[in-house]
């Protein structure tokens, strides 16, 4: 066996391993990843999590806004805490998301997620989940109700009648 031949065997072995690594991945797993691009938007302003009643430092702690410089290493802006660390479940969890011109406040109840956009104005909220989007109307006082509470990761895309578009980070409750 010459050295070049043994190099060939190594290369072929590595190629076999590489092809196998992709072959064992279920196609649904790949397709679900591709479908996530539906939620890529260029137009909307990203709102940062500025308050979470289940925040990392306990009840009523404001979440730190994303540090863009640390994004590669940072925890994603909104991560659910382990159940044990959550406050009394009888209290409603509330969160605020702030962009330069709009604030989205939400409160998570057992039956529904209720929210308001500030300053109050009419518009539409789109609940973006792994599945299909659900458009929810926002009334003239800025109120909206999402029923039931989305079970998995979701984010809210808010489009106001005045033309503002704001997007929250993904939220996992």
């Amino acid at each position, binding site marked *: 066996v010459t050295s070049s031949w043994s*190099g060939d065997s*190594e290369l072929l072995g590595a190629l076999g391993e590489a092809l196998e690594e992709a072959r064992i991945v279920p196609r649904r797993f*790949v397709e679900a990843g591709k479908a996530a691009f539906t939620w*890529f938007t260029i137009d909307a302003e990203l709102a940062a999590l500025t308050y979470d009643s289940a925040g990392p430092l306990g009840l009523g702690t404001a979440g730190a806004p994303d540090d863009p410089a640390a*994004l590669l290493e940072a925890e994603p802006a909104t991560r659910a805490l382990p159940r044990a660390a959550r406050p009394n479940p009888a209290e409603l969890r509330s969160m605020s998301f702030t962009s330069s011109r709009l604030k989205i406040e939400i409160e998570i109840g057992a039956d529904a997620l209720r929210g308001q956009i500030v300053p109050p104005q009419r518009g539409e909220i789109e609940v973006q989940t792994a599945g299909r989007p659900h458009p929810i109307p926002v009334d003239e006082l800025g109120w909206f109700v999402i029923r039931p509470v989305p079970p998995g*990761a979701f984010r809210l895309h808010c489009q106001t009648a005045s033309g503002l578009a704001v997007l929250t980070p993904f939220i996992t409750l």
Partner: protein
Amino acid sequence: VSVSEPTVVTLVARAREGDKAAWEEIVERYAPLVWRVCRRYRLSDPDAMDVGQNVWLLLVEHLRQLREPAALPGWLARTAQRECLRLLRSDKRQLAVADAHLREAVVEPDLSTEAVVLISERNAALRAAFGELPADCQQLFGLLTQDPPLSYAQIGERMGRAVGGLGPRRARCLDKLRRNPLLAGFLEPDGTFKGGQP
């Protein structure tokens, strides 16, 4: 030599502009890495699906802010790892298990996440280079890498070619593969493959 295969930096740049095909190529390339991380934590298929879903949603969310697109595989692996740990922690059966134990409870504990990323990047480059080979080379390599292995006689039969020509053809195809610029970073100066088997 083809240079059509885009780098991850190019793919991220295109996806940021809204190019769906570039996004899909990113997912095709690195879904095996995310899957591999899930498997390290022995997640069931449905749990791995959940983690994968979250990882790609988080990438969509952070796509515009990624400072180092070249480091995307590492970002994906760390995000997948974090989502796996989060899922295991939230699982009632695992509630009392400390993070340190969860971290140690991986398959192949000797292999660090960084090592998994390196192997997976190399594998992605190999698959991309494979995808650029002529069809007959792809067919030959597909047959040569079957498990359990096929004999040359079986391969010759399936390809409708004389067994005697397979050796030289194999060498020619491997040479084409090796000369693909995608693999440049994974080859020793003398042309042998770096690292050998993981």
